[in-house]
């Protein structure tokens, strides 16, 4: 798409504000917003123009419970370690992902196995993060002997503007455990805490949430959970 054309940029900014840019087009646009101040201005202009439309909506007071829950979350924000788990239940998403991802582990595992320069022995655990449409996005491999995690991006997985993708382990019991930030492309490796590796045996799976740039400020997921995958023990 030609982002150099001012008229087209204008329209794209309008479509973005309307919520009509989706998927890859939306991600590309959000990436551009990081570096392009004029495009940002285009977005703000449209937001302002259309906001007047909301005048016609009759205000509606939210129930008091919203404010109470908000206060709890604010307190948790101030004391990160005592944050109550805001982890949402996503069983439906989960169950669909399980069968699909299991199948993909086999397919993608073979495919990726070849591209690694020095295969460091077989991973103890693997997981494939896939989009809702079933497109594989990352292959995650955990090597228990070397206490390493490899994250191989299988697509260009750029997070939304100003955000990071963060990986979480969903332990058998208790709150999600942070496992680090995801790379948007290529292969990234990190060392893993032995306690996390030990907990993977009984973990319910892995999940990725969208967090503020640099990762969750609280040590718990704060943004939407966008991908979940089961852990396959090899």
């Amino acid at each position, binding site marked *: 798409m030609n982002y150099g054309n001012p008229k087209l940029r*204008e329209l794209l900014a309008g*479509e973005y504000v309307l*919520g009509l840019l989706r998927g890859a087009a939306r991600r590309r646009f959000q990436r551009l917003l990081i570096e392009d101040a004029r495009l940002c201005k285009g977005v703000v202009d*449209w937001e302002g123009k259309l*906001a*007047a*439309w909301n*005048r016609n909506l009759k*205000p509606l007071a939210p129930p008091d419970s919203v*404010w109470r829950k908000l206060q709890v979350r604010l307190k948790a924000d101030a004391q990160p370690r005592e944050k109550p788990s805001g982890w949402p239940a996503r069983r439906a998403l989960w169950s669909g992902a399980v069968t699909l991802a299991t199948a993909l582990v086999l397919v993608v595992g073979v495919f990726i196995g070849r591209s690694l320069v020095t295969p460091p022995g077989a991973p103890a655990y693997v997981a494939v993060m896939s989009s809702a449409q079933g497109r594989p996005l990352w292959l995650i491999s955990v090597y228990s002997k070397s206490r390493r995690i490899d994250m191989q991006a299988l697509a260009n997985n750029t997070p939304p503007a100003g955000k990071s993708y963060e990986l979480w382990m969903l332990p058998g019991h208790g709150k999600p455990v942070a496992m680090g930030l995801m790379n948007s492309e290529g292969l990234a490796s990190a060392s893993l805490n032995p306690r996390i590796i030990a907990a993977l045996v009984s973990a319910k799976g892995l999940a990725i949430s969208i967090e503020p740039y640099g990762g969750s400020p609280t040590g718990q997921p704060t943004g939407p959970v966008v991908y979940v995958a089961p852990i396959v023990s090899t």
Partner: protein
Amino acid sequence: MTLSAQTPLDKTRVLMDLLHGCAQGQQSSFQKLYQLTSPQLFAILVRILKRRDWAEEALQDAFLSVWRNAASYTAQKGAPLTWLVSICRYRALDLLRREHREVYLESSGDEDGDAWLTEFADQSQADDFISHAEARALKRCLDELNEGQRNSLRLAYFDGCSHEEIASVLRAPLGTVKSWVRRGLQGLKHCLEAA
């Protein structure tokens, strides 16, 4: 705090003060900001998400994000209420994409789908932050668009519909809807900037 006697410009200054207070970590500012703006924002979220429980969740998320990001608010990001509306809208759109909501739009196929627009247009609302003049200019410009264009913009903006969903609601080909949206945006911009 009552704002009813103030002009939209005064109210905008109040909101700016409150956002500044939030940026300083003042919870009292945050609470006032919530009291003043949550009814308007909640109405937007209920409209777009159609489900109260989702709207409540989105409102919480949005205000948490406001609290965290208040320090980054500057006039460059638009009027304070516009900034708040945008945070809510993008949050709602994320939620819609995540949940793959099935669209159900009670009034969408109606020929007078814009009836609600005129219904409230002249009603003065005590806690309204948007000037009547701005709303009137927008309405006049929307009236200049053809029906397909206007309905396409409305379904996207208020109901979070995708191009495909708009096409199914308006029973029009996808290509036609895409061009309605683009012509609608062009027409709106031209009209608003000429005014």
